[in-house]
């Protein structure tokens, strides 16, 4: 029997009124593995991330490192090591880029109140700077998100998901807004992140990126998994070409 995967969903189903946005989606991601999730617009990819991270009502199981997470609130799932980014960025516009990351490390509560008033606590500046450098955002640390371009804002979102104890990373179209060159760099960064043992689920429409960087790919259409396998097989799968790619991907 193979060892348990790092992350798994089992028969995850999300229904919005008459819309079946996710239909018994079952997938796994191993430690250090980059898994792609592609599909046409409205296929239910974001819904899957929402359901897994606790933002959409779902049935079915979500497991991280053997621990069941379904039913827990979003912040609990994050604390357990499941981090996500957002398709629309969703950064804290009042905070600088570095502070955006700091928030994900030290979460407010009674302990921070006591620490702030009586102690001398400093955010983990090195960890934050390292995460920013990793994504090429070293210069942006003290800027506000609204001053950055769309692509950079997405990367800040990724950096924020990386700090504060992350075992599994769910990325919702992180490369939308990046140009061809930046997207290539981002792929290399993803590989470095995965090499540390973090599992990655990558949603993106940039086929060069997805097919280059992923170990396996799932294809979603109308909420259902219609294909899964290594990138080379996915690229030539007629069902995937019909529903999503349109024609064979040129290299």
């Amino acid at each position, binding site marked *: 029997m193979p060892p348990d995967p790092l992350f798994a969903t089992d028969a995850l189903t999300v229904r919005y009124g008459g819309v079946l946005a996710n239909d018994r989606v079952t997938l796994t991601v191993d430690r250090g593995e980059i898994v792609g999730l592609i599909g046409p617009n409205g296929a239910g990819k974001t819904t899957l991330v929402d359901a897994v991270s606790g933002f959409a009502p779902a049935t079915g199981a979500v497991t991280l490192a053997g621990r069941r997470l379904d039913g827990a609130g979003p912040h609990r799932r994050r604390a357990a090591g499941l981090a996500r980014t957002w398709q629309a960025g969703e950064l804290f516009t009042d905070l600088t880029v570095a*502070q955006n990351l700091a928030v994900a490390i030290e979460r407010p509560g009674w302990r921070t109140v006591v620490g702030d008033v009586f102690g001398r606590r400093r955010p983990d500046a090195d960890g934050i700077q390292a995460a920013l450098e990793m994504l090429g955002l070293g210069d942006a640390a003290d800027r506000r998100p609204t001053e950055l371009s769309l692509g950079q804002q997405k990367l800040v979102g990724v950096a924020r998901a990386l700090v504060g104890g992350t075992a599994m990373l769910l990325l919702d179209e992180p490369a939308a807004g990046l140009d061809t060159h930046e997207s290539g760099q981002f792929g290399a960064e993803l590989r470095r992140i995965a090499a540390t043992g973090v599992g990655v689920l990558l949603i993106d429409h940039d086929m060069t990126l997805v097919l280059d960087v992923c170990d396996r790919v799932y294809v979603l259409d109308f909420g259902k998994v219609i294909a899964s396998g290594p990138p080379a097989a996915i690229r030539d799968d007629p069902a995937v070409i019909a529903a999503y790619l349109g024609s064979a991907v040129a290299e």
Partner: protein
Amino acid sequence: MGEFLQFVFLGLSTGAVYAVLASSLVGVYAATGIVNFAQGSIALWAVWAVAALRADGTLVLPVGSVGLGSGPMDRVPAVAIGVASAVVWALLAHLLVFRPLRRAPVLGQVVASVGLMIFLQALVTLRFDTTSLQALPLLPAKVLTFAGAHVNVSDLVLAGAAVAVAALLWAYFRFTRPGIATRAGAEDERAARLMGLSPDRLAAVVWAITGGVCGLVAVLAAPTIGLDPTSYTFYVVPALAAALVGRLASIGLACAAGLLLGSFQTVILWLGTKSWWPGWAQAGLGDALPFVVVIVALFLLGGRIPSRGEVTETRLAAVTIPRLRPAPVALVLAAATAATLLTSGAWRFGVVTSAILTLLAMSLVLLTGYLGQISLATMAFAGTAGFALSKLTTSAHVPFPFSILISAMVATAVGVVVGIPALRIRGAQLAVVTLAAAIAVQSFVFSNPALTPFEGNLIRDPSLFGLSLAVRSGTDLTTARFALTVLVIVALLTLAVARLMAGATGRGFLAVRSNERAAAAAGINVAATKLLGFGLSAFLAGIGGCLIGYSRGQLSDASFTVLAGLTLLAMAYVGGITSVSGAIIAGLIGPLGVLYTFLTQTVEAGRYYQLIAAGGLLVTAVLNPLGLAGTTGHHARAWLSRRRRPPEAPPPGAAAPTGTEPAGTVPTSPEPSHAA
């Protein structure tokens, strides 16, 4: 049963006013995103204008008046002119106050609309002969009998009118192109203009319609409800509660809730006359009801984390995270100590009051400025602690400083309870709920004869280790010992809060304020954080309330009115809701503080304080949407960034493809953005 029904129907005329106000509030909110607290005051003006016209044909204007014919005017032209006056006020409000503020932080809009409400209210009292004018009958005086109850036809007509107004407004927003365009313009003004729509003009139409219908129904209901210089102004609170039942989005629910609420209140009045009705529930239950209704409705309807497609960002005042530098802190402390020691009597009392107000404003900076939760209940928190202090010191003989700590803990508990609705709603809507809560606490606790003795709540003077810290000693109105005690407490707490703001807690609060969904995804327990903020803020306000109590020696319901709470928030906003310096400014200009003392003692203009405060409030809110401290800071930062940034671009190839220029300042109000 017949009697019960009779009271149900009797409440319909009040209910109709609530319903039309509530429908209009929803309409204005849909068209502009503004919660217009002044909706009732606009109607109030119309009512008095009609009364004056029907008395002797005088058209009363804000300045001067015009005689229209000799003798009383007929009902139809009088009503038409009265309604027209409401339309004009609504349009003026749009053009002069709300349109300039359309990109200001939500709090700025709330403060401005509260300012307008107080302004119009004051103007009515000044301009009309409120002692002799009456509301003459307008609707037929027929009475029907239904299931043993006598029902006034006028009540039914009013209820019917309310339903008709709601239906028309609903259809306008739902089916007509201008109506749909109005909603679009309110959501994203920029995108609407990019499509060739003119949001300002569209909003003006809604302001005019809602002003008109509110004026009309109030005028028609006045003969039944009675003429009174304030009533309609505060009808806006139950109306807001009714509007909130439909989350300021459903005109139908708002109308239905308004009608029901009117009936409920008369039924409760009727029940209060029964011998079996408990004594403690005799007063204030009708006022507390809206709050209860809203809370229940929100819990049945609301979701915790904003879901997909809900607007997740509201415009908020910009923040600069404070850095505590020893020199300025020492300077402020030295100045405050000097001001306490070098003054005496009324002046020292002014300084002490300003210090206490600074603490109250700090509680708002934390809760509203940092956590983004607009609270109009801060004075209620303070009052709760003050009243607890009275009971603790007179009945239980709890010594200082435990008395003050325990009282503040009581306020904390109330704060957490009032914070519960904040788990489900945000922005201007939350302001309404906290206002309802403040009114509930005021009328149900402070003004309830069963809980508050007629002679007021006495408070024993504090003492520590046998040393009296009493505020008065002999002829000394404000002892230096008491003043210094206040100063030490305020300084310690302010420093503690400033450290919170600069630390992890402050950053966490700001994260929640700027995007709850992202905050939850970053691992923050949003619900617990909000309750923590309400608790901390109520604790600070509670300490402030105790200090007010000690400085007065006794408390009555007049000490912590809802209006005082509104004034405090307004002052905190005008000072600068996101900074310590803003809180200090608020303390200095707040009621009975240093500015007030200056006006009474030096220029003897104390009776104009209210006027100066209200006028200054409106003007400042319109001109400085960031608050005084914010505007100054913003200019300073913009200037700095222009100096720091070289005017020329770096030579080609000198920099990486991603931007490397030093930071410019942030735009003052981030455009609302939406999640996909």
